[in-house]
């Protein structure tokens, strides 16, 4: 990260954590337990592509820990955030150009990749994150059915909200 993209990332951190805690989690409590939207992983997704993986992992842990602190789910979101940090490279690998991403593509956003590539990469990234989150949320294999059903429904609802967020803010760096 350089000076020009620290501020947007800080804003994204605070904004996504606030939206997650104050709005989206309240919607889950109102609508029902299967209405789960996890938007804060976008912070990890929109981190610079050139950022070394250990930093992505640590920042993923940080955003997850912030959500945990607000919701009282100690360690669960932090664990999912760290996992997404290390799986980001795997999720974006099929969409990387030959030779990998360059400075021409600072972040994984529609402004640089196009909507199709962005949505495909985000779908894969979110699937990793949401599956890990519910696995550790339930913490026992006897809840396998609940984990799978909530992962699917949460992924669907999240993928509805992601394009809305991106269309609204159109992140470029």
């Amino acid at each position: 990260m350089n000076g020009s993209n620290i501020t947007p990332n800080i804003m994204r951190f605070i904004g996504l954590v606030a939206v997650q805690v104050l709005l989206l989690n309240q919607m889950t409590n109102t609508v029902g337990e299967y209405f789960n939207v996890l938007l804060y992983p976008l912070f990890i997704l929109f981190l610079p592509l050139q950022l070394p993986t250990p930093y992505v992992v640590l920042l993923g842990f940080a955003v997850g820990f912030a959500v945990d602190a607000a919701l009282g789910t100690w360690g669960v979101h932090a664990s999912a955030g760290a996992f997404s940090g290390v799986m980001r490279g795997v999720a974006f690998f099929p969409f990387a150009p030959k030779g990998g991403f360059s400075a021409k593509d600072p972040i994984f956003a529609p402004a640089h990749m196009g909507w199709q590539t962005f949505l495909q990469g985000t779908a894969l990234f979110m699937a990793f994150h949401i599956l890990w989150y519910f696995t550790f949320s339930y913490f026992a294999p006897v809840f396998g059915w609940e984990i799978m059903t909530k992962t699917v429904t949460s992924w669907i609802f999240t993928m509805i909200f992601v394009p809305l967020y991106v269309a609204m803010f159109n992140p470029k760096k």
Partner: protein
Amino acid sequence: MGKLLQLLLRNGGFVTFLLVEIGCFAIMVNFETRHKEIWANTTGIFGGRALEKRQIAADYFSLYETADSLAHIVDSLQARLSNARQMQVSIRDTFFLVNYDSLSKTDTVRRKTVRPQYEFITAKSIKNAIAGTNNWLIINRGSTDGIQPDMAVVSPEGIVGIVRHVGTNFSLVMSVLHRQAKISVALPNQKNAFGSLIWEGGDPEEMTLRYIPQHFVVKKGEPVVTSGYSLMFPQGHPVGIVKDLPKSDPENPYFLEIKVSLSQDMATVREVAVVRNLFKAELDSLQLKISINER
């Protein structure tokens, strides 16, 4: 060291992820109530299984000591059983009949305490033979263990033989499968009619019971036990069962000849006990007086 550092740097993301995940796991199982309970339950189950397997292994390696202590317990129980049978005494006076068979009970009428008569010394048969005309065993007990000649040798299943020669650490036992062996046995179903059990050679599973009077109706399958009259074998110890319907003894037509199937398979004798009669000295001196009187 340099190569390790390079490896860490190349896989820095994964290493950082592992360390962070360990931290997250620790936070979850310590601060999340539900996760703490699930973790405690899981560690309890797997910890219990691991401890169980460890105990099975430890029990296996201590089997020798367990078997040894069980052998001592069996001896003690056999001693108590034999002594209990021995001490069943009826005391009768004009007012009441008292039976007592406890080892430690005191008779309040005569103020006498019953005393045990037999002790059992565990031993192992280290050499055995059943194919000869006169068969012997060697056991791993000798004079240092309190063994003396003319002590009976039994097993939990039946009778084995009589000690004849004693060394410091080993003893030679005349097997019941020896032509000179003569064991006093009784038929409990025939009012404890007693006779002599001898081996006539041949079948190592069969011995011959003689001197049971003809008027007894002995049936096939009846139990045969030690009579207690030999002073070596305690009374009531199992010997075998009546193998066939008895015939008239060709040597003495007033008595029966009964084939007895031994309960102890002499081919598989291993764990035995030597019977020490605690009143042997007194009984031997009484027997000596009989011999002196009859001269």
